[in-house]
């Protein structure tokens, strides 16, 4: 009899304390694989992160599902990539979320590279901002601080933990940046021409001295025109570009055709739109894979 009573008390206590622990955690819904990693590293045991965009999924093609909307509505904090990445569903998402849910468009708090104005197109801030900020380690450092601040606003009691998590993650990013600089230095500066499936590497190019020639535009739903592809092939021949790079989430058909016509080779596949299966399961792994693939193919 006494044993059964003790067991019941234990169960009640266990449920109480485990529920209390869960309630203390910040529930985060992330619409970016990179932000999911940052949130986990900065938040540690004080957060529960649900990644609504999965590794290897093309965020440009993502459609908001009722299930994902429910998950976002049940969270305390929604993290968005920002800079127009979620433009196709942002209004619906904001309208559907309860007022208590905080929404932070992380990229919107980081300075933008823009595209369009320099091509004579009409300026449209929402669509011409380059959303691929995670391809710059410096921008990812800024994103880490934005996430730290968001957690601290929600849960000031654990501010020191969030600061410690951010500091540790920033140290990893610093070491990664140092490695990238050394690896890129193996490639002559006049061979740093990066031809990729879509225009996702402008931030990377700015940091490490590359010129970008992409097949598609800033998003993956823009089909390249014949004149653009013809001009690109001519540019590859003129510059003596050795390799064209595929992307893990895109169809390689046009890239393969371009290599056939230009004489360049396929340099490998890179992660352009965030984390993915294989080497790209972590941010550092993704970046190291991309840099190694690019430098070794263009050498």
């Amino acid at each position: 009899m006494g044993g059964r009573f003790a067991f019941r008390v234990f169960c009640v206590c266990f449920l109480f304390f485990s529920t209390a622990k869960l309630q203390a955690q910040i529930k985060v819904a992330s619409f970016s694989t990179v932000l999911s990693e940052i949130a986990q590293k900065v938040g540690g045991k004080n957060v529960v992160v649900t990644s609504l965009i999965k590794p290897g999924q093309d965020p440009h093609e993502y459609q908001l599902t009722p299930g994902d909307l429910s998950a976002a509505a049940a969270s305390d904090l929604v993290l968005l990539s920002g800079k127009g990445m979620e433009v196709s569903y942002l209004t619906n998402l904001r309208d559907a979320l309860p007022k208590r849910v905080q929404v932070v468009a992380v990229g919107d708090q980081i300075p933008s590279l823009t595209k369009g104005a320099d091509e004579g197109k009409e300026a449209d801030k929402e669509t011409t901002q380059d959303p691929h900020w995670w391809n710059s380690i410096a921008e990812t450092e800024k994103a880490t601080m934005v996430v730290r601040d968001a957690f601290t606003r929600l849960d000031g009691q654990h501010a020191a933990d969030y600061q410690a998590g951010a500091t540790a993650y920033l140290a990893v990013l610093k070491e990664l940046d140092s490695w990238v600089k050394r690896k890129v230095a193996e490639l002559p500066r006049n061979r740093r021409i990066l031809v990729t499936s879509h225009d996702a590497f402008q931030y990377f190019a700015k940091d490490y001295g590359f010129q970008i020639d992409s097949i598609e535009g800033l998003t993956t739903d823009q089909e390249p025109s014949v004149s653009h592809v013809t001009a690109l092939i001519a540019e590859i021949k003129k510059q003596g570009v050795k390799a064209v790079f595929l992307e893990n989430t895109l169809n390689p058909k046009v890239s393969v055709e371009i290599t056939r016509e230009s004489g360049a080779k396929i340099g490998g596949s890179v992660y352009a739109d965030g984390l993915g299966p294989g080497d790209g399961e972590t941010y550092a792994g993704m970046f190291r894979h991309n840099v190694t693939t690019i430098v070794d193919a263009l050498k």
Partner: protein
Amino acid sequence: MRGSPLAQAILVVAALLLLLIPLHRLTQREQRPPELSVVSAAPKQVHLAVRTTAVPCRFQITFLGKTLWAEDAGMPELAKDFNIDFPKEGIDLVVDATWETKALAAMEITLSLPDGTTIHKTLWGQGTADDVLTFKEE
């Protein structure tokens, strides 16, 4: 003269096969990749001068993944000439320096080109310092 049907069939097949050769040559896709133009810069004589605030100092300068200059410097100023490609986009030198002193020290690297262009870069550290320095004509 009409011959056997078998012989006629063989002749027709042979004629068709002969026709296939020029047809194939006319219609085949060019398989050989076009010659790529090679982007390279003519090697230039580059003069490098290293000045360090503290000695002894051990340093290594790496260019395109290979050691260009490694030295155990007992003097605060050293200089050397190198024949290397110097494109208009500039060059990156990876510099690793180690000082015996743990106090703050600096290493200045001056790159001079034959046309008189001079570019200075400085590296700071306590005990050690390393960085990738870009030298580019303005």
